């Protein structure tokens, strides 16, 4: 188990992580979402031991990875670009990593690269962006570390490469590797993740995907009979996702003490249809801010 406890990190006087707490069990696929600058990369780098936390710990099986660096054998960080390996060929990179990670699977690495038609003898610098991301992902997964942290693995790559990366990740997840994936592509995360970590203002909230679908927040399409009730629409328990003519798509907090759902019924709308919640809806609900306009 990977346990992050009370993790705090301030950079340039700004608190990027504030008392972050969560636990990751083996075999999970975890999506990390947040607005730009929310601290996702800082969190990953701190979890990987690249950054030293100001407070708190990252523990693998009860031992701090900062105090006991050998524990980092179990956590591999895949950045959004393998810049550090630009002067290496794919094969040289594999050789280098095999010296560091005793569990490195050279066969898996070579076979997968062959399957993806990536050259083993070409310098990484000469790879396209998509090829680099595929290479990085294969390299990280070949370490056979139980926890793999991926920072924007599908950012800026074409649809085919994206699909290949996601397939690789799903295969690894099926084998029991815990994947922690940061991405702005919520549709992808929705398909693969079973837990979502939402980062906001340096803190973090954990959500099961099941909870996203059937949790406290519900999504409705509503058409009001008369003028839309502004006070209800602006209440903290309601968020307007979209408005086309008189048709509103709203998120409603069903557990709010004011009872926004009951209030909506009292308006006797022409239409009040329950829609399935998506990860994007959760993202907007949690991170859209008070100025969000759908």
């Amino acid at each position: 188990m990977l346990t992050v406890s009370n993790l705090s990190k301030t950079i340039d006087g700004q608190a990027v992580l504030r008392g972050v707490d969560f636990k990751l069990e083996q075999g999970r696929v975890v999506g990390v979402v947040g607005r730009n600058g929310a601290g996702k990369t800082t969190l990953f780098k701190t979890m990987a031991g690249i950054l030293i936390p100001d407070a708190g710990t990252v523990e693998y099986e009860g031992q701090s990875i900062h105090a006991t660096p050998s524990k980092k054998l179990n956590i591999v960080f895949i950045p959004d670009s393998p810049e550090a390996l630009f002067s290496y060929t794919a094969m040289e990179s594999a050789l280098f990593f095999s010296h560091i990670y005793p569990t490195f699977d050279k066969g898996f690495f070579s076979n997968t690269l062959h399957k993806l038609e990536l050259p083993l003898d070409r310098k990484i610098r000469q790879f396209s962006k998509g090829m680099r991301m595929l290479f990085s992902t294969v390299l990280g997964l070949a370490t056979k570390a139980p926890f793999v942290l991926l920072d924007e693995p599908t950012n800026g790559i074409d649809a085919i490469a994206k699909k290949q990366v996601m397939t690789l990740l799903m295969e690894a997840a099926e084998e029991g590797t815990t994947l922690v994936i940061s991405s702005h592509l919520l549709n992808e995360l929705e398909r693969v993740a079973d837990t979502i970590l939402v980062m906001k203002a340096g803190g973090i909230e954990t959500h099961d995907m099941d909870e996203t679908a059937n949790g406290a927040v519900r999504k409705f399409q509503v058409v009001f009979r008369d003028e839309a009730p502004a006070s209800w629409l602006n209440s903290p328990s309601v968020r307007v996702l979209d408005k086309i003519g008189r048709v509103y798509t709203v998120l409603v907090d069903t557990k709010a003490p004011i009872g926004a759902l009951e209030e909506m019924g009292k308006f006797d709308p022409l239409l009040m249809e329950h829609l399935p919640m998506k990860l994007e809806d959760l993202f907007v609900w949690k991170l859209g801010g008070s100025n969000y306009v759908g």
Partner: protein
Amino acid sequence: MWVKSLMLREIRQARAMIWIIPLGHFLMLGLQRYNEWFMGGEDLIALRVRFANSMLEAYQYGNMESNSRMMLVLALFVLALIQIGAERRNGAQELLFSFPYSRRSIYVTKWLFGVGLLAGSLLLNTLIDMAVMASSPVSSYFSFAFHANEFLYSMLTVTALYTLALFLGAISGSIASQGIFSGLVFVLPLGLWVLIERFLRVHDIYLSNGRYYSYRDQYQFYRYFSPDYYLFVQYPFLSAKYVIGMAALLLLAGWGGMAAYEKNRAENNGKLLLFPVWDRILQVSFVACFSLFSALFVSEMLSMSNELIWYYAGLLAGAFIGLSLIRRLTRIRLKI
């Protein structure tokens, strides 16, 4: 502390230096010795032999070794830039820090690579030098003790200064700032001394009996902080004070560098310095030096009379400009 995979990576990263350093060393030592005793006309060589009446003269008081030490220090300063400064911008440092090794192991491996390269170059070139001397027309003055002492002293001196370069790398935020701080090591002691002496002189405090004196001859204590004092010492003057000075530097820089690298704040990469405490020291030192230099410049250029007034005008102007300059400099993040 020894990590094979990290060492292999260091070798790969700085592979050009593996032949540049011994070759440069050979050009400065073995080849020079060969030129001295084998190249040129017979008459010239005979003349040189006639003037070589002692072991010291045959070895030219160790000047070739001094020049070699300087070359080695410059080369190892470049190596330190590759090992630490360059890694900050190409993502290599982040990759290293994500590996299952302590930062201490990473730092020690870097240091061992540099020191190993130095030891190899020194050993190889000392053997070449010994062979040249033993086969030269002045082979009767061949001295194993000379070679051994020069080898050991060069090893200590260059290792100490290389360790200092690594320390500067460990506190600097970029390859550019590491390069600047490394260069300052050579000019700062004399530069500071000139500024302080001028400050005292405008206040009628003279450090000599007269107004005019030589920095070189009379006021040498600043030189104890200057690398060339240790690098260019001639063989007959080699004494315990040089060894103690360099040993102290080695210990201090080694401890400081290790501590700084272990606490390395990777999030500050690109800044002039990595640590706020060093940032503050840099700001104060920069303003002090800039204002003293400005005062010296203004008083030299403008003062026909009232030197003290012009000096303080320059000092104030320098403090103001220096402060705004350093504030800007410490805020920027260098891409190089």
